[in-house]
Every structure is written in C-alpha cells, then in structure tokens.
C-alpha cells in the first residue's frame, strides 16, 4: 500500500518525462510495430494505382504548418506514387497559410524523383475564395489560376496543355485539414462535376468522412498519421509517418495505462486512509 500511496502522489513531471521519451525514442530508433493497412487506406492506394500511367492528376493540398506532422508524410508518399506512374501532377492550395509549405514539399519530392517542373508538375499556388474557387475550377482551371505559385503564365507551361477543368483529370486527390477541404470538394465538386476523389485528412476529421466513403463519394481515405503510415507500408517505405505511428501507439497505450494506474493508486490510497 505504501507504494500505491507514492504512486498517487507522483509528481506530474515523471509522467511528462515518460511521455516525452515514449515519443522521442521511436523517432530516433524505429520500432516497426505491426501495421495492417485498413480497407480505406488500401482503397486509396488502389485508386491512385488505377489512374492510367501518364495522365494528369489534380492534387489539392489544403493544410498549413499546424497539420504538417499528420499530412506532410501522406502528401509526399502520394506524390511519389504518382511520379512513379509518370503522372502529370497539378497542385493547388485553397487553405490560407499553406502555400509556402506545400511548395517546399512538392519541390523536394520532385527533385528527389527527377520530375521536371512545368512538364511533370506544376504548383498553381494559393487562391482565396474557398468553395467559389472550387466551382470556378469546374469552369476553367487556367482562368482560375492564370499564374502559378511563382508568377509564371500557366499558358506557357507544357503540362497545362490539355488541362481545362475537372474533366481533364481521372482523379482528384484532396489532402486537407479543415475548411475549405475534402468536405467542400465532395459537396461542391463531386456532385456537380462527377470527378472521382481520394482523400487524406487529419485524424480529427477522419470520422466525419466515413459517410462519404460508404456512399462511394470518396474512393479511399487516409486518416491522420495512422493512415499515412499504413500507406507508407503499402508503398514499402519506412517514412516519418511509420516512425510517428510507433510513437503514437506507445503514447496511446501509456495514456490508457495512466487512467488505470491513476485509479488503482487512488483506490489503494483511499483504502489506506479509511483503515
């Protein structure tokens, strides 16, 4: 009982230390805990794989640095899968505050995979206006984004030849953290322009997307870091999400353990006080 009393009075800094270590250690030394790709993730992978090689794919990256740990890894893996299929990737950003981060990610992956800017890839940058922009893109993408992220006239880029509106793409990939994002694409674009959508969202938003997945409005779904890690597993990568997921698993088990231990300790202490 004495030990339990000690536990009940445990300084919270011990808990902080354990939490910190459980997150830090897997980042330094990956544990590669078991990961089984769930059906929505597999469906996402299949949706990208089913795109004909060499076709145009629209990728809407709607997140800012706050969602970076969750959404950056899946963005990178998606781009890698697309470049491996020699797809021509058109990137847009509708979420304020995300343009520079997205540009950095896109260019890094392009360099790593030898994709040529303007031919294999274009980043059209950020456009304010939320759903209105989505609908405008349905009329004309070159009109909605006359210049790319760096102010280049999109008419001069070889990749934009043949890009009109949603009908030019066999797939739209929406990676989003909030408003505007996947939900708005489903409501505004899917219904109106009938373009197939595959989505990656934060863990917080994932449950709200399940209805769209069930109804077939989304072909596949990556939910937060877990989804990204499973996707990396399918692509045979050991990326930041897989390592992050090791940390997630350990931390979740630890928090669950904290609830149990905290109550056991309290219970023991109470009994001792009562006696």
């Amino acid at each position, binding site marked *: 009982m004495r030990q339990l009393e000690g536990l009940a009075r445990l300084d919270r800094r011990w808990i902080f230390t354990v939490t910190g270590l459980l997150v830090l250690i897997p980042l330094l030394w990956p544990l590669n805990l078991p990961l089984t790709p769930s059906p929505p993730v597999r469906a996402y992978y299949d949706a990208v794989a089913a795109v004909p090689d060499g076709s145009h794919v629209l990728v809407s990256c709607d997140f800012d640095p706050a969602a970076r740990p969750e959404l950056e890894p899946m963005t990178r893996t998606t781009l890698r899968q697309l470049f491996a299929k020699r797809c021509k990737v058109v990137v847009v950003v509708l979420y304020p505050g995300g343009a520079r981060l997205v540009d950095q990610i896109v260019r890094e992956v392009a360099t790593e995979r030898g994709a040529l800017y303007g031919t294999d890839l274009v980043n059209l940058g950020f456009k304010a206006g939320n759903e209105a922009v989505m609908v405008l893109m349905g009329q004309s993408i070159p009109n909605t984004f006359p210049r790319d992220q760096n102010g280049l006239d999109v008419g001069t880029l070889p990749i934009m030849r043949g890009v009109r509106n949603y009908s030019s793409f066999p797939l739209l990939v929406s990676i989003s953290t909030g408003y505007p994002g996947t939900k708005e694409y489903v409501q505004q674009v899917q219904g109106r322009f009938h373009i197939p959508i595959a989505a990656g969202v934060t863990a917080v938003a994932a449950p709200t997307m399940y209805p769209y997945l069930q109804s077939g409005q989304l072909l596949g779904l990556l939910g937060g870091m877990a989804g990204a890690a499973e996707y990396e597993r399918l692509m045979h990568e050991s990326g930041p999400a897989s390592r992050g997921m090791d940390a*997630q698993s350990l931390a979740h088990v630890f928090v669950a353990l904290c609830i149990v231990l905290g109550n056991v300790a309290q219970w023991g202490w109470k009994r001792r006080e009562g006696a």
Partner: protein
Amino acid sequence: MSLHPSHDLGVWVAAALTLCIFSFLYKDNPFYKFAEHLFVGVSAGYYLVLSFWTVLVANLWDPLLAAFSGSHGSPVAVRLGDYRAFLLLPALLGVLLFSRFVPRVSWLARWSLALIIGAYAGLKTTGFAQGDFVAQVQGSIQPLWTGQWGTSLNACIFTAGLLATLLFFYFSREHKGALGGASKAGMYFLMVSFGAGYGYTVMSRISLLIGRLQFLLYDWLGLR
C-alpha cells in the same frame, strides 16, 4: 546517425524559443517567463498590424479615399450598393472607443459597443438558427428501419440518444419520473461522448508533439 546542425539563424531562434516553452514542463522559470512575455508582445503586435492593414486601410481608408477623390462616381450611391461615404460613421464610432481613456466621457464608447453587439447578436441568432438548429434537426431525421438489422439498430440508438440528451437540458421541471429516466440516459450518452472525445483527441495532440520533436531533431540538429 550523425548530426548536421542548421546554419540558419532563424532555425536556432525557433529552436531556442521552443525549448524555452518546453521548460515550463519542469516548472515555471525565467526562460519560460521570457518566452511568455515575448509571445504576448509579438502576437498582440501582429494582430494590431494585421487589423491595421487588412481592415482599417483596406476596408475603411481606401474606400473613403476613393469616395471623396471622386474617382468612382458619386460617393453615395446606396441604390447601387455603394455606401462608401457612410463609412465615416464606423470611423467615428471607432474613435469613440478611445473615449475610455477619458473617464468623464467614457460613456460615449457604449454607442460603439451598441453597434457591435446589435450587429453580431442579430447575425449569430439567425446563423445558429440555420446552421446549428434547423440543419442539425434536419440531419437527425432518418428512417428507423432500413431493411437491415445493424443500421436500423444504430438509427434507433442514435435517435434515442439525441432525444434523451436533449431532455437532459430541460430546465423548467424537476428531473423525476420519466423525465428523470430520460435525462439520466442522456447523461450516460454525454459521458460516452466525452470519453470518446478524450480518446480521440489524444492522437492529434501526440502528432503535434511529434511534429515539434521532428523539427528539433531534423531541422535544427540535422539528425540523419
């Protein structure tokens, strides 16, 4: 693994400030106090600059200038939705806010508050009526029998939970008898929902910590 610390001064500043904030975990200390006060100062300054350029200049000064320089026709063409010249009124009310620094006339600031409160109370009342009241009620209406046992049961549980929880918020009667039973059930639904909310937030919180640690390890220390 090897270290390649960043050569960018900005990254070092960001890393140092991150560590100052994290030091609060040990206890309140001078480093945290420094970061805390810097943060408050810089963020208040940022909001000030932001509202100066994006509201006071863009939405007030520019339209007023255009209105009185006569560059776009008459300054008061309300019929056409052009009320630029009237923007003098909010400008005046904005200045009246500063009457609070002079106790004798500080009541003048109430006129400005009256405008703000009236406008937002009206907007929010109808905004909530549509988005959180009618739309949520509409979204809750679903067939209780779908031809499938599983989904039908879920629909019934959902409807029962919704109505019971709503009755938990019934204030003008003692929670006894049938109402007591319903509100008790509502309480249980609330508790399950809070537990689920807690459990499901854990993931995004840990992700944020991972993000910060990745910044320190990879961007700052250059661990490879």
